[in-house]
């Protein structure tokens, strides 16, 4: 494994973790833009634009894009989050050149009005799909409720109203401001010829014009708000809770992951033994997430409506106990073993490493090998966990419930 880095004159970052023994090559453009960079009028535009990238360019029709990807036998996809939009392909190494040719071309999409209208229908179907399935919008509602006027409050998909109202011109304006080379990273992993990658990127992307771009990175305010949204389609009750946590820049994020694994992993955690093993809930998990400027622990509970109040009380009691006494050395060690094994297992596929190194570069402009990452988790102590708990209390969380219940008692 060898890490390589280059930067074009226009600011496009190029990074790669090269492994000549790999069977595949994975390549992606990470665009440093997402829902947090939108406004009310543009809500959902990042994700809609991600769809439009596949609808053709000046040189290629949508059919051409789809056909060429399949001709390479590529595994291609894209996703949009609160703070990044990622376009990725995994191919056999001999397709590195055509894969980058196509990927860089779709970073300059045509955004034709007819395609825009058809694709808008697909996005509206996607929104309808998520409204119909667990957790029935509880995730978006809890982000909006917890983060209030913070940029992370915005929904990635946008709403029926905001997406319906979007115009091609609004999307073009957003594209011109955000898809600039100094706001993008080309990342590659696996069996990659790095010199050839940089040469080709210079030819294909060297003429993209840089432009000043910025992102607001305020800290989020913690609160203990509690809100119930009745939903008659759901038969089960879904509850999402958010507490603030270490940000992407904070070294406390490793201790935070150990903590969330101990408290709320889907197996072997305190939530698991209290609520899942006992059959009291269908799902009770907690994960930590880091963003630029702020971070969070998000917990998710689902189960029978009539058992929800008791389960929420159990969760609060569990959080209070962790907040007071921290975690045990045995729990620390078990979480470390579990996380480090997952890191190693995931690193076997170049596609997984691609997301890890790309996100790391986007958030922190640094590279971490698998070994470095494992070292970071192994060096966490119970004291570190206690420090993170003191700085970001788990008990200070907001709560949103979605499901058949009209009202729900707050736990004591």
């Amino acid at each position, binding site marked *: 494994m060898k890490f390589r880095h280059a930067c074009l004159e226009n600011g496009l970052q190029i990074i790669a973790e090269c492994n000549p023994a*790999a069977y595949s090559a994975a390549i992606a453009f990470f665009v440093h833009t997402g829902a947090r960079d939108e406004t009310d009028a543009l809500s959902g535009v990042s994700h809609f634009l991600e769809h439009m990238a596949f609808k053709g360019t000046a040189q290629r029709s949508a*059919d051409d894009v789809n056909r060429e990807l*399949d*001709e390479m036998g590529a595994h291609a996809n894209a996703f949009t989050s609160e703070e990044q939009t990622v376009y990725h392909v995994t191919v056999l190494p001999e397709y590195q050149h055509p894969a980058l040719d196509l990927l860089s071309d779709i970073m300059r999409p045509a955004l034709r009005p007819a395609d825009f209208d058809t694709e808008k229908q697909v996005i509206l179907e996607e929104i309808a*799909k998520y409204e119909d399935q667990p957790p029935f919008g509880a995730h978006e509602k809890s982000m909006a409720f917890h983060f209030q006027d913070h940029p992370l409050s915005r929904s990635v998909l946008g709403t029926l109203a905001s997406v319906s109202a979007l115009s091609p011109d609004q999307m073009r304006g957003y594209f011109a401001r955000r898809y600039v080379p100094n706001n993008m990273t080309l990342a590659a992993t696996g069996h990659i010829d790095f010199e050839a990658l940089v040469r080709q990127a210079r030819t294909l992307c060297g003429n993209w014009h840089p432009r000043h771009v910025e992102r607001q990175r305020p800290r989020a305010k913690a609160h203990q708000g509690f809100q119930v949204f009745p939903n008659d389609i759901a038969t089960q009750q879904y509850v999402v809770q958010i507490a603030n946590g270490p940000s992407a820049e904070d070294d406390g994020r490793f201790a935070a992951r150990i903590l969330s694994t101990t408290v709320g992993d889907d*197996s072997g955690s305190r939530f698991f033994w209290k609520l899942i093993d006992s059959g009291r809930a269908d799902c009770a998990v907690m994960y930590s997430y880091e963003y630029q400027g702020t971070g969070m622990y998000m917990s998710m509970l689902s189960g029978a409506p009539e058992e929800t109040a008791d389960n929420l009380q159990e969760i609060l009691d569990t959080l209070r106990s962790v907040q007071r006494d921290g975690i045990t050395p045995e729990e620390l060690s078990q979480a470390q073993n*579990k996380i480090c094994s997952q890191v190693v*297992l995931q690193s076997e596929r170049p596609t997984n490493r691609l997301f890890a190194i790309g996100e790391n570069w986007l958030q922190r402009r640094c590279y971490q090998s698998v070994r470095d990452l494992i070292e970071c988790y192994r060096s966490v102590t119970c004291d570190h966990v206690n420090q993170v708990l003191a700085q970001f209390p788990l008990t200070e969380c907001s709560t949103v419930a979605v499901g058949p219940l009209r009202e729900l008692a707050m736990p004591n």
Partner: protein
Amino acid sequence: MTDPIEIHQYENGLVLVTQCMDWVESAAFSLLVPAGCSRDPRSQLGLANLTCEMAQRGCGARDSRQFVNDLENLGVDHNASVSLAHTSFGGAMPAECVEAALAIHADLVLRPHLPADQLEDARLSCIQELRALEDDLAQRAMHELRRQRYGDPWGRHSAGTLDAIQRAKLEDVAQFHAATYRPNGAIVSVAGKIDAARLRDTVGELFAAWSPAPVPEQTPSAGNGTCTHLPHDSNQTHITLGFPSVPYGHRDYYQARAAVGVLSDGMSSRLFTEVRERRGLCYAVYAVCHTLRDRGSVFCYAGTTTERAQETLDVIVHELRQLAQGIRADELQRLKARLKSALIMQQESSAARSGSIAADWYYLGRVQTLAEVGRIVDELSCESINGYLAAHPPGALTVVTLGQQPLELPR
């Protein structure tokens, strides 16, 4: 592609299938015991699931908590599930831990505690699973489709029924375990950085005390292909369609698989292009080959809002009928590229190989190497696929829809 695969059958009937992958640092195993939900007595649907839940609540020298803690401290990303034919346990882990993980699972099948004081918790867990299914509308429609296509027991869902789970007693669980957690019909597969010879001895010792049990006869009923609508006040209508196909292992299987590939694999496939790209009718649309040992089906799915549902069904049915007219050379060329790159990339994952070689043994009674599958893909031609499609045009459709309004199957 080199894939040294070794197969060993022990005296008690247990089969070990291994693939050495010395380029990875991990190993993964699958343990398939013939305790699938197709073995649930008709009046006790859900018993396999409850038994699987109970089997993990302590075994050998470990109580329920120690069982989970030991696996997690070994770094085993573990799972358990119940399918029609099997209850499966498995996991991926650092290669050096695989023998220890297998030893824990030998205790699970040979020396489970099935503790009486945990029966109510296990029962509640199964009920939670059953309730959660109610909110998964796409899966509910697909499950009803399978029930209609395959009848009983092959159209069952492992979650069973609330009534049966509530009635199940500890003796039922113990009896089910004794009858179905048997080595004859069980498969252990291990793939990754392993020493196959050493593993053969270790597995032999670990499972030596496992005694065979008789295999009861099954009398499956046939499905009844009809059109059914499940009324539901949802935003989207969930459309599922199924039609008969050949099972995995049939000499024509890859012809059928390729035809479905033209329909649904990749972004230039017919369903994606016609339903989503051209018309924007839905976000999710696909078709897959589903296989039992003696029968197969093609299942299609699309989710779309009420007012666009009829058009979506019309376009899908039109594409199915078009498929019978044959596929084009450029479509086959793209499909081959996709299938071959997927085969090569399968070598990057010990978990993928472990699952795949175990399934091969169950369906085929042998294991296909990736090179062998690669040759079959090379040999596919438009003539062979179109010949198959002419003889087996998509037809005898079973349709299940779930949503606000029923749909009409186009003539």
